[in-house]
């Protein structure tokens, strides 16, 4: 019985460490605001004094992907922009989550045209979809709370050999 095998089981120490790590991850989610169009204004409005996003630990909206956990895709994604969004997603370090904010990112929205991607889940794994055009800031905060719940169910060692299937099975 090596140390590895002991650590794989859900004993008392590992679940406490899991809970601690999950708590610290969810209380300081640093978003990466991929603000492309109108939803970006509601995202900035979620950071203004009325709908304070800082109380969720997310005040630090860094525009560099290397320091962020959560990518909020806000705005219509066109085919030309999809390459850019994907490149930035790849630059974010693990663990990372994605919120698809608004109707345009969830399914193409009101734009059924030749240049709009009908939903970003065609090239990104999305964790939470938000409805609205644009969604109210309270709606975005609700999505953030759903991400926090999702994070609280994850295990600390889960991101070592990460696979998409495991993350998608993390239930809310």
């Amino acid at each position, binding site marked *: 019985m090596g140390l590895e095998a002991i650590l794989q089981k859900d004993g008392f120490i590992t679940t406490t460490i899991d809970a601690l790590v999950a708590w610290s991850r969810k209380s300081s989610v640093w978003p990466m605001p991929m603000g492309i169009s109108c939803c970006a204004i509601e995202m900035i409005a979620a950071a203004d004094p009325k709908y304070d996003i800082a109380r969720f630990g997310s005040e630090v909206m860094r525009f560099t992907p290397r320091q962020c956990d959560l990518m909020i895709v806000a705005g219509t994604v066109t*085919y030309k922009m999809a390459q850019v969004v994907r490149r930035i997603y790849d630059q974010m370090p693990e663990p990372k989550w994605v919120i698809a904010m608004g109707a345009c990112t969830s399914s193409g929205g009101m734009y059924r045209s030749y240049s709009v*991607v009908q939903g970003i889940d*065609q090239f990104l794994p999305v964790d939470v979809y938000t409805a609205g055009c644009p969604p109210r800031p309270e709606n975005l905060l609700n999505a953030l709370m759903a991400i926090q719940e999702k994070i609280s169910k994850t295990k600390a060692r889960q991101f070592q050999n990460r696979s998409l299937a495991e993350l998608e099975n993390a239930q809310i």
Partner: protein
Amino acid sequence: MRKSNFMDSKELILNKVKEKFGQAIEAISDFRNDLCFTINRNQIVELSRFLKEDSELEFIFCKDVTAIDWAARKNRFTTVYHIYSFKLNFNLRLKVNIDVDPPAVETVTSVWKSADWYERETFDMYGIKFLNHPDLRRMYMPEGFEHYPLRKDFPVIGIPGSLPLPNKAE
């Protein structure tokens, strides 16, 4: 006061343009108080220069250059120019019916510099070549896109596979 100024300006423009370009003008229209000249394809740069440099007219501001695709007519495309004169406070429209195929017309960037990007956009959307344009590239669609979106035979939902998408992420 304002009404009479408007009518006077309209009379002045009509007289001056008819006097100089009488035979090149194919049509004059005045729908909802918007004056519009339809001019022959070869004379557009001359007319533009005349309108800009004449001391009484001074149409120095080019607001827009665009095109219309009449899908079923013999001359399929028409380019439309919107220009404005600060002196007379008058909006004027010029139209050019394009009767060559592939569609091409002389550029007006030598007269108004702002037509540069408008003509690039018209080229991107309709495929009309502007001869002697300083930098005719696509404006909105990515380089290498083969179709012209605003033509009437291009479907609104696009042609699947014409624009590349990144692979699904892991």
